[in-house]
């Protein structure tokens, strides 16, 4: 079993639904997006356009972050999902440097979105237990939702149906078909990280 995601950038309209869905489900801190959309302009007027590329943790088969973690907080699970055990993480940020995708965030504070008021909202309080200041965190491919038989929040949300979640190792799955059909590629594949997130463009 190897969970992964195919992202079709030709369908993406850059709406940020995935970014905010992830933020909402996991209650991430201000400025932290485990999932976000890269955007850049190409061409010149009037033959110009904006390009969109949603990015997230690639849950690499040969995860450099897991390689360099001195305390074994970052592990690649059997199902391919790379997680960080925040009870173990010592916050050395070696993994942050090692990740070619800038997918990891070192969390500095859990004071929430309203430090100017000195309060945390009722919603923020329910998500507190998911984060610890001084540790590194990242996209977990919603492994808690997957365990309940749901799909990740980002692919669930996408109004353009640009994200497809599934088991890359299952040749009968939709995602495996898509990878084959479109020769979907991972980012910076030449680094040998073996990303589980593949792109169709």
């Amino acid at each position, binding site marked *: 079993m190897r969970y992964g995601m195919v992202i079709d950038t030709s369908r993406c309209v850059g709406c940020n639904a995935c970014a905010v869905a992830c933020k909402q489900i996991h209650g991430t801190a201000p400025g932290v997006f485990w999932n976000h959309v890269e955007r850049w302009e190409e061409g010149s007027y009037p033959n110009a356009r904006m390009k969109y590329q949603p990015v997230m943790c690639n849950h690499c088969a040969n995860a450099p972050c897991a390689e360099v973690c001195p305390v074994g907080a970052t592990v690649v699970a059997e199902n391919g999902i790379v997680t960080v055990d925040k009870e173990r993480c*010592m916050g050395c940020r070696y993994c942050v*440097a090692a990740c070619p995708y800038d997918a990891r965030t070192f969390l*500095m504070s859990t004071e929430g979105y309203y430090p100017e008021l000195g309060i945390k909202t009722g919603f923020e309080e329910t998500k507190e237990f998911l984060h610890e200041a001084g540790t590194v965190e990242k996209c977990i491919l919603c492994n808690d939702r997957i365990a309940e038989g749901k799909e990740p929040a980002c692919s669930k949300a996408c109004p353009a149906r640009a994200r497809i979640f599934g088991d890359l190792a299952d040749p009968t799955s939709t995602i495996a078909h898509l990878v084959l059909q479109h020769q979907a590629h991972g980012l910076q594949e030449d680094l040998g990280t073996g990303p589980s997130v593949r792109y169709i463009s």
Partner: protein
Amino acid sequence: MTTQQEKATAHTAQATHTKAPLDAVTQAKRPRFTRAQLLAGIIALLCLIVGIPSWVIQMTTVQFGEGLVTWGLNIDLFFLSAGIGSSLLAVTGLSLFGVLPGVYAQRKFLSIISFACLFVASWIVFVDAGTPLRVFSIIFSPQFNSLFVWDFYFIALAALISLIILFKREPKRALGCLGIVFGLAVTITEGCVLAVSVGTPHWSLNIGIPILFVLEGMIAALALILLISRVPQEEKRLVNALLALLAAALVVNAVDVLVGAYLGSGIEATTIAVMVVGGLAPLFWGQILLGLLVPLILLAIRRTRVSISCAAVLAIVGVFLGKLMTLLSGQAVLADGTLSTYMPSLLELGACVGYVGFVLLIVLVGMQIVAHRAAQNESVLVSEELA
């Protein structure tokens, strides 16, 4: 006693009779602290007054410099401290082979510094970690796939060897061998810590970094020796060695930049641009000129006490800036091509000042312990002779 040891003893005896303020501790009747030591003590105290609160705040509230760089001044000091400590150990270890008798005579003093630097390097990791208490997991559940762990253990071993060299009256060559091996192992491993970081092309595409780390460590160690020790016999050789190392470091830097500029693409090319003409240019050219070129020229054309001291200071500052440069350049460009920013916070600066103070403190305490022991031993010797 072997001939070598006889020689060494003779040298030590000689050394004792020359005016070396730092060896005054061997004479029980001399004042407990020299003026230099007092000064160093005051500096250490001041540094720690700034440092200790900074550490406490940093460890309890998780704060770092502003911007998107996660390895900044703290890690720079870590590499510097570990680099000096381990390289000093390597040089001291080499001296146990009798090829550097002046250094050998200074071995205790240098071992104290070595130990202090290595200990403080570990301390820096502790302070810098997001959750310091979990650093102990490196001891209790080490993940040996991570070079960070190897570095940690090499530092620990190097510190231990420093201590042994410090307290052994006549350290054997085998110990010297270990000193060289683990002394170099630290800097090589640290260079590799960066070099295996796949996510940082500027480090991983660059075979020069482990080499550079070894060179920088040795530069700092030799510069320190020349700065604060009296080794007139070997001064010329040490200066030549330092010259060669500076030149080598210049070459490695140049190769790094040229290879990156001509063969690198995307992030690497942007990084080189940022380094050479962009936001990091002042730091880059600063460390090249002040830290490598100027000391090299100084040593090449003039070898007075003053010029050597100046060159040494510049060289050490150059290593500090050079490692900062390595760190920042690697983190200058994000995966999406945008540039990151960094500004050390007051807290970081305070913490770093504290590290310097901590090293000074350990060195001073260490010197006191050694002096006390030496005084006792002398009394014993005297009493033995009398007896």
